[in-house]
């Protein structure tokens, strides 16, 4: 799935999402979450559209989204690699796993490959410390890793992504 250019996006889905939340208090974060779920990220245009619907300024919305780690303002890869950097993973060498991502895909924390295949995200703790070090690729968790085991997983995904494109 190639990432669509911003001007090709149909933003009308935002109106539908906002409709559900109109008049409900505390809906800023759920609306942002749902819009991001739909488009993969949150652009300035999207914030304006949400703001029009909810009678809020885009700046107010930006203030909220920039506070939370799980909102993104640029498109992300089809596969998001989350490397857990929690304590248990840290003492078991998760720093090396991030380096392997860099070696395989050439991306650092928060970066996305040019073909929008992969994004690296170092996360605080995904709560699977019993099987540290752990990574997640989209919703799938892989545990008890070594740098070499993780390299094989990344290679498999790279192959998979190539075939899918």
């Amino acid at each position, binding site marked *: 799935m190639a990432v669509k250019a911003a001007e090709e996006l149909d933003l009308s889905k935002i109106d539908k999402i906002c409709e559900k939340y109109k008049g409900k208090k*505390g809906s800023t974060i759920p609306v942002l979450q749902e819009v991001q779920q739909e488009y993969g990220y949150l652009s300035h245009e999207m914030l304006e559209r949400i703001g029009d619907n909810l009678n809020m300024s885009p700046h107010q919305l930006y203030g909220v989204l920039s506070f939370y780690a799980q909102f993104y303002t640029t498109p992300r890869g089809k596969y998001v690699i989350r490397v857990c950097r929690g304590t248990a993973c840290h003492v078991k060498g998760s720093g090396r796993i991030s380096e392997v991502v860099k070696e395989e895909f050439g991306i650092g924390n928060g970066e996305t490959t040019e073909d929008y295949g992969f994004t690296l995200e170092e996360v605080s703790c995904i709560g699977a410390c019993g099987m540290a070090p752990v990574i997640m690729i989209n919703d799938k968790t892989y545990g008890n890793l070594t740098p070499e085991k993780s390299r094989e997983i990344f290679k498999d995904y790279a192959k998979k992504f190539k075939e899918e494109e």
Partner: protein
Amino acid sequence: MSAVKSDVIEVHVCTGTAGVASGAYEVMDAFNNVFKSKDVPAIVKERDCKVKKTGCRGLCERDVLVDIYLPGEEVVTYEHVTPDKVQTIVDEHIGGGEPVKKWAAKQSYYDFYKKQKRYVLKDCGVVDPEDIDDYIQLGGYEAIKKVLKEMSPEDVIEEVKKANLRGRGGGGFPTGLKWTFCRKSPGDHKYLICNADEGDPGAFMDRSIIEGNPHDVIEGMLIAAYAIGCNEGYIYCRAEYPLAIARVKKALKVAEERGYLGDNILGTDFSFTLHLKEGAGAFVCGEETALLASIEGERGMPRPRPPFPAVKGLWQKPTNVNNVETFANLPMIIKNGSEWYSNIGTEKSKGTKIFALSGKVKSTGLVEVPMGITVRELIFDVGGGIPKKRKFKAVQMGGPSGGCLPEELLDTPIDYDSLIAAGAMMGSGGVVVMDETNCMVNIAKFFLTFTQRESCGKCIPCRVGTKTMLEILERISAGKGREGDIDLLESLAEDIKISSLCGLGQTAPNPVLTTIRYFRDEYEKHIYEHKCPARECPDLIEFVVAEDRCKKCGICKKVCPVDAISWEKGKVAYIDKDKCVKCRECIVNCPFNAID
């Protein structure tokens, strides 16, 4: 664990996050397929066979864990089950009556449970978390029935006070007393919040409880809501826990359908609506006032107290916030009575505490122990000690707010007050064990990196102070530490502790203070000798093979990702420093500690 009474053959598969990651659903499918196939043993055909998904039972490291319940027989647990083992287990064990010994759990599995007292987690790993009837069958929702039928709100608060339950989120504030504040606070609309924003790195107790037994938490919330007089509530769960969120959603829906949530619960005039709020990735939202701001849809920044949430909380209404584990304690307190409950634990800390045991320990996972057990028992008896014959060095308790305890303090009893006296804290329950290859300056730097990044920036001591401390730690671990740096760290730490607005800043210096207190020599070696004794700070390692210790095995050559190591059979290895990228793979893997 006891034998099953019914005539049904049950296969329980652990489907917590760790179980699922290890392939639990594939194992479940394999059992279902075998049970459906034509050439299944006769005994299976004659009886009902049920494959049931359960939550986390603790020893995540051995997943996928499977229990086989045969009528009239003791349960047999299998560890590391994969789909290809399923046919054999069905043929030989269920069909032939002989457990497959080579895959059955070994003694160390049972040792893990020997000193545990699983009360809160009693049904976690037994009950199907997505089946309300299973929960009800095990006595679920009996406590709220008892409360609504026989007890006044004051009775409930009194019972919780008598049980001496203290908040499990970390601070240890008496729960009954906290409720009284909110109950007495004037207002007709009050909120009850379940804090499931478990952000401490190294903690997964709340996730496991919610994934394993979500109705227990809902029932606990109902009891609290009735006692305080709350009519609306939220479970605030961090977004990093997709499985927990999915199970809460399901549980809320079905609890409402069955009349346990909503208007006129169980035909009484008690009404309680419960919503789920997903976090969006901000550690500070675990702080209760920040959490409230986040539910309101704002940046999750803490607010000064007073006014306390009990007076002006969510949308300015009286609000009570408790942690997941606190709620999960309530149904059993009501069912068994405060007297029973207060017999468990120590004089000042009652009941049990759930810990997430991880790091350099043989059995990693979720454990529940009575208060008062020592740290040593937790790590060596429950956790089985340190792997790879290495030496214990320190244990980090209480996450970024807690501290590192050295070997001399291993006999500290686990209760709120003893841990604080030792410089650590109960925290939410993360316990990360470290061995001799872990550097204490590095671990302090790790936590400061975390708190500095997660500081919301509202107050200066936390925002600038943690950054300054981090810069000092960074230069120490890079070999550029200066005379006086340790004193400077200590004085900054004290200032940040007393002047920060919320718990994040007030406790952020703890990991630094305790590592200095107990491992000062290690800081000094970094600063004055430019050496990292644990060989974890890359800038302070020479990457030279020590000829006298090298046993010429060649493992280092195999693991080096950049081919910087040359080795021939019978010869000492050699590291080419021009090629070496200082990744430490050789150091981590060398069985003889032969690389300096």
